[in-house]
């Protein structure tokens, strides 16, 4: 069942916007304005935008470390997401977290953290809370192909399946964990096979076809809302950049990279579909792109003009009810 033109246009806007978001982040990471490391999601926009688009504001979302895009689309003021990455006081977490720690409880973006696989068990708790309180909010957790190596994944799926917790496990198989190809770290040809060992419904879909992404995610959400338990979806995709901005990624064959960029760009694929199937004009799409470009330019400006955090705030909120001693 094809998605409506309207929805596809909205997704186009989202995907284009997060591509541009990441491109700017890359520029400022490489020129040293953004401190630390950033993991870019360029090439994975269809999965990020598609999954988030299926969710309610009250659903719990656990994007992963390559999830700037998903995070920006959760409903938070996007410029505050970017400001967090820029280490600014205006950041959604006041600059204390950065690229790997952008949470926003308001929109139930539960955020990621620096320990791969740990949100895969934290997410049991939000799903449990839904079940405990009898709401039909679902929990979506993103994980990479590499992260599937962690023992937490097993403990999580085992418990979620036994208790029929409303979780959608979204594995973004971009085929590499840093330098290691997923077939060197896992025995399965397709990682969706793994969930079959738990008798959990699973499938592998083209993660660069946003329609396929939405359809699979909606099926899973429906099951979860009805109390039928977790689903595991593997989205096949590819990251264009290295592991972090600046990683030359010499470990990947050139023609593999080329193939994914030239022939499997999720944005280009959606554009083609919009033009050929939905009869959109180039102009219509360019208008969307121009709007996004403008929005991004404003965000960057906001970030560059934002003040640094107050140093002493580094001591705040360690405990809920007491202050930490300064020197």
């Amino acid at each position, binding site marked *: 069942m094809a998605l409506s033109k309207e929805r596809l246009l909205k997704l186009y806007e989202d995907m284009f916007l997060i591509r541009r978001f990441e491109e700017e982040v890359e520029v400022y990471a490489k020129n040293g304005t953004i401190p630390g490391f950033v993991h870019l999601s360029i090439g994975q926009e269809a999965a990020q935008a598609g999954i988030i688009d299926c969710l309610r504001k009250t659903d719990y979302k656990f994007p992963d470390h390559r999830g700037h895009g998903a995070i920006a689309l959760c409903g938070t003021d996007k410029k505050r997401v970017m400001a967090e990455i820029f280490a600014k006081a205006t950041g959604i977490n006041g600059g204390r977290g950065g690229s790997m720690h952008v949470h926003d409880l308001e929109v139930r973006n539960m955020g990621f953290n620096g320990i791969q696989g*740990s949100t895969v*068990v*934290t997410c049991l*708790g939000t799903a449990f809370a839904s079940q*405990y309180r009898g709401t039909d909010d679902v929990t979506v957790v993103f994980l990479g192909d590499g992260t599937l190596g962690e023992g937490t994944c097993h*403990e*999580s799926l085992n418990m979620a399946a036994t208790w029929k917790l409303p979780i959608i496990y979204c594995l973004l198989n971009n085929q590499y964990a840093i330098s290691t190809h997923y077939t060197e770290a896992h025995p399965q040809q397709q990682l969706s096979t793994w969930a079959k060992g738990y008798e959990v419904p699973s499938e592998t879909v083209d993660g660069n076809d946003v329609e396929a992404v939405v359809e699979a995610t909606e099926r899973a959400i429906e099951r979860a809302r009805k109390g039928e338990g977790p689903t595991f979806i593997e989205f096949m995709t590819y990251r264009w950049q290295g592991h972090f901005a600046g990683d030359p990624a010499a470990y990947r064959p050139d023609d593999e990279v080329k193939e994914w960029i030239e022939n499997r760009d999720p944005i280009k694929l959606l554009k083609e579909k919009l033009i050929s199937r939905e009869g959109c004009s180039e102009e219509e799409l360019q208008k969307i792109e121009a709007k996004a470009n403008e929005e991004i330019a404003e965000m960057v400006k906001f970030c560059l003009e934002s003040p640094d955090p107050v140093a002493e705030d580094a001591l705040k*909120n360690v405990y809920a*009810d007491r202050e930490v001693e300064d020197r």
Partner: protein
Amino acid sequence: MSRIISYGKAINEALHQEMERDDSVFILGEDVAKMGGDFGITQGIWHRWPHRAKDTALSEQAIIGLANGAAICGLRPVPEIMFADFITCCYDQLVNNAAKLNFMYNGKAHCPITVRTVQGAGIRCAYHHSQNVEAWLMNVPGLVIVMPTTPYEAKGLLISSIRNNNPVVFLEHKLLYNTKGEVPEEPYTIDLYKAEIEREGKDITIVATQTALKLAHEAAAIMEKEGVSVEIIDPRTIMPLDKETIINSVAKTGRLIIAHEGPKFGGFGAEISAIISEHVWEYLRAPIMRVTSLDVPVAFAPVMEDYVLPKTEHVVKACREVMEY
């Protein structure tokens, strides 16, 4: 109304009363529901609140992970890790997640979980069921570490822990489960961040926890006969620590001994010693002594286990040493 009940029963009662009071409290862990816990501490809860008592698989990471996630949603999970030795299996969830959660969310979410677990030697179960684990967690800002000793403390501190908005690691001691004491029937709290002066004295301060408190009291009685007056402090919560009470005591006595059951090197006693050396060194009249286990894994055979554990005579010896100094 107070009656005499055991430490184990006091904990059980605290759990019941908090479950009763607050719908957002629930328990989970291995065999905590239908069986009521390996040590029987959660008995009766599942029968009354079957949906709020969950038996889990052997999955310590999932247990604490679930608790953290539920806590963000405003629930108050009380997970049990069957033996404290197994917190190694969910150490990441405690250290990198629970401890940092309030900080991560910049205070917009808290982590009101109370991880109940049981530590300590003495039941001849060798090195994987006998460890004292508090020192593994002390260098992790964000955690609260509570070590109740009496039944009265067990109940009041557990109620306070459950109501506290920080992640509490609540370390019960298995040798204390059957010890008895006076405990009020009604719910009550104990200030989590306050040490207790269990005995006043003027010559020596002994800071001790759990089983070592008994040694301290026995030693104090012996020293009393020798005309030496010992003050005994139970920190109760070792992190964040009530430094003031300890500092004030040592400022008065001028002598400090720390006694605990775990190994000495890198143990809880080191921090107490360091704090005193930093803050009231000028009041000290003798070296600061530590009475602890030897620095070894706890062996199985009773003669071996007994050999490595601290005993009253060791506390007495330390007392005499600091007095004769």
